[in-house]
């Protein structure tokens, strides 16, 4: 384990212990927050006893998987297409740059009109959160492909599709992974927040219900679950991305 990683764990551990002490000593009101150890125990109870838990987890994960797939594949294809037309790219660049300055939730009423209340709206909302990160990462990744590899592709008489599949895609993959990580992170935000406001099922919906019913045990248990999930997925993708970079580059 690197020294940096030890520092990271130390900072997180210290923060958790500090929260635990502040809650146990009553400095933070239990009505506001329960101690982290109780959050973990509450999560164990929810997992073991709540009849809605596994169906809601399946619902949320299903929506999330669909949103990630849409943003990753859609972002990749749109990124490739826009990159291939420089004028289109110049026209769209300012929109992509300022995209995340616009609150995507303002589109929520439109999504309801087009897709109704249900998984489809949620999936589209999640995909809208993630797709632009993937589009921008795709274009950046293609920009970074060494020109000499494209010359090799031409000298080898590879066609457009073989060049894309056999050279461009693998050569761009370390930078595409950065886009995928962002797309996953944004999609998680979109799905959970979407369930919070426009769903009748899912973990986000359960958090909202617990919040409205002052059920701190369940609410914090689910927040711990969401945090653990998001951090784990991000860490796994990050480790994969680093492994690719190590293999690709000497440094």
């Amino acid at each position: 384990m690197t020294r940096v990683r030890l520092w990271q764990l130390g900072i997180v551990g210290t923060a958790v212990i500090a929260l635990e002490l502040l809650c146990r000593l009553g400095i933070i009101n239990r009505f506001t927050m329960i101690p982290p150890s109780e959050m973990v125990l509450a999560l164990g109870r929810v997992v073991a006893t709540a009849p809605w838990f596994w169906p809601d987890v399946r619902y949320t994960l299903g929506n999330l998987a669909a949103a990630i797939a849409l943003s990753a594949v859609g972002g990749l294809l749109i990124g490739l297409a826009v990159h291939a037309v420089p004028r289109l790219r110049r026209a769209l660049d300012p929109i992509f740059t300022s995209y995340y300055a616009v609150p995507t939730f303002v589109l929520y009423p439109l999504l309801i009109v087009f897709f109704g209340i249900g998984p489809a709206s949620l999936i589209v909302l999640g995909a809208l959160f993630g797709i632009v990160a993937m589009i921008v990462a795709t274009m950046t990744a293609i920009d970074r492909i060494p020109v000499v590899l494209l010359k090799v592709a031409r000298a080898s008489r590879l066609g457009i599709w073989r060049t894309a599949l056999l050279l461009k895609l693998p050569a761009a993959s370390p930078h595409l992974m950065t886009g995928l990580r962002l797309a996953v992170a944004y999609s998680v935000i979109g799905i959970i927040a979407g369930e919070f406001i426009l769903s009748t099922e899912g973990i986000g919906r359960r958090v909202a219900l617990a919040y409205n019913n002052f059920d701190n045990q369940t609410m914090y248990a689910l927040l711990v679950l969401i945090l653990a999930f998001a951090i784990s997925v991000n860490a796994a993708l990050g480790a994969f991305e680093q492994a690719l970079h190590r293999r690709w580059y000497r440094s």
Partner: protein
Amino acid sequence: MSGRVRDTAPAADIAPAASDVHVALHGIAHTYPARAGQGPVAALGPLDFDFRRGEFVAVVGPSGCGKSTLLEIIAGLVTPSAGVVELEGRAITGTVAKDIGVVFQEDATFAWLTVWDNVAFGLRRAGIDAAETTRRVDYALAFMGLTEFRRAYPAQLSGGMRQRVCIARTLVLRPRLILLDEPFGALDQQTRLLMGEELLRLWRETAATVMLITHALDEAALLADRVAVMSARPGRLIDVVTTGWPGGRDSSLVADPAFGTLTARLWARLREESKKALGAS
């Protein structure tokens, strides 16, 4: 100057029989179109030149004289503004012909593939069967001294080894014309000499026609049968020097007094052109 430059070799050597001509350049010229803030750039020519079958030709010239453009035109990667390239009597201008292998100066290894898979890349695309692919790749790796690194990834290799991977990837396809664009440009002098010897070995083994672009006059003088000297931009041929070395030459030639004379002659032809190029840049 667009006419054919007279070779310094004996007359019989100057005009090869038509059947001996592997690649013929007729009136090749190239101008890069205007870009923002810059007018059109006349990069090359016009020039005429014949590559004889199985010959090793080095092309030297000042920086920016269009050497790489010339190579890319012959490879079919760039369509010349004027002129025609003939490969074995057939015009190939603007198309990438079969039987041409290109090695670039930059690292062109595929970082995501092992050394073995890098070398096998072209064979698999060409649909060569697995047994033949294995045989050719193993032979090329042994030839280039890379067998023990067959499972390594390019990032684990030195610059010279990665360039050898690129050469091996070209070699396995058995091209009849090998185009090398300053393949040793990023290497130190000792490695360049050794790589030059490997290149000579490869040339003798394959009997391919080789065109080597280089800015190192000693490298050109050592390796080539003929050295084509180009002017400052737009690059034209100002001299073609026949080295007269035996086919079985190696780097021990650098101790030969004739090697020094040859290198000095090349420099004498290039000195003024290099000054012009510096002044232009």
